[in-house]
């Protein structure tokens, strides 16, 4: 399975993501530099975390104008699974592929801690191996993680089942404790927490299995397509 890991100036979770995709889940990842075209043979794309362009202007907004994002939009329309983690989520939101915006955490602090998610939508390519409401112990590491949508958009997200993950308690002031959402078709998913930092027992003191299911869901989805 060919997975593109998009690298922007300031990405810093790209190698962790590459390692987990290749060494843990035996996929075939490749780095894709932001100003080059996206390779054509990809089964999935991941936008990893980091601080693209130093979060200047607003987290993710400058990277959202990168040439490669035009290609990401094209393959998103084709239904190819796309996952944005942390800064990758911010970039997907700022590029218009996902609704909403990520604001500074209510505390104004950079938050680096373990959270618990609940799975709200188990139909996406990254959650199809979960039970609904299943818990995921997973770390966050961000300064701008407060997901915000206006009331009207929030109702739409609920109606169209676009809320994928919620925190099980108030973490950073996100609308309805939302930690991850998807597009209407469900193939583009963005989440603030870091599954690549939680999918191995060596680095997860709680339980690495739930985070592993995010990657195993992708394997199941692509396997089903092939």
């Amino acid at each position, binding site marked *: 399975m060919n997975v593109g890991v998009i690298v922007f100036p300031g990405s810093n979770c790209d190698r962790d993501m590459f390692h987990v995709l290749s060494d843990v889940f035996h996929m075939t990842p490749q780095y894709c530099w932001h100003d080059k075209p996206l390779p054509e043979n990809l089964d999935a794309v991941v936008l990893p975390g980091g601080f693209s362009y130093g979060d200047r202007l607003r987290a993710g*907004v400058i990277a*959202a104008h990168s040439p490669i994002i035009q290609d990401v939009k094209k393959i998103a329309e084709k239904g190819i699974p796309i996952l944005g983690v942390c800064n990758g989520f911010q970039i997907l939101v*700022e590029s218009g592929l996902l609704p909403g*915006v990520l*604001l*500074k955490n*209510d*505390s*104004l602090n950079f938050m680096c801690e373990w959270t618990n998610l609940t799975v709200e939508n188990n139909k996406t390519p990254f959650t199809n191996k979960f039970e609904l409401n299943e818990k995921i112990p997973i770390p966050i590491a961000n300064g701008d993680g407060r997901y915000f949508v206006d009331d009207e958009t929030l109702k739409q997200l609920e109606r169209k089942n676009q809320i994928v993950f919620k925190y099980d308690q108030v973490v950073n*002031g996100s609308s309805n404790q939302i930690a991850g959402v998807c597009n209407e078709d469900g193939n583009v998913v963005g989440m603030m927490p870091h599954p690549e930092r939680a999918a191995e027992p060596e680095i997860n003191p709680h339980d690495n299995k739930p985070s592993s299911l995010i990657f195993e869901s992708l394997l199941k989805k692509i396997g089903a397509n092939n």
Partner: protein
Amino acid sequence: MGDYRVHVTIENKPGISDPEGKTILNDLVLKGTHQSVSKINTAKMLKFTITENSKESAKSKVKEICDELRIYNSMVSVVTIDAFDA
């Protein structure tokens, strides 16, 4: 053609929480002797210098740039644009 300075102020829409503004108000200003202050909103300002035919066209060009490049996110922010002679 002339040079104009155009100031773009980006701030949260009313009703969207501004924890930094609240902290400045509650933990700095109101802890001092300035009890007449009731609200502080933080904002980001970008100062453009642009060559255009008039102050008005300078202003509208900058607004166009802001909208095209998502300089502000219209879901959460509003912009105020002011133009001045350079």
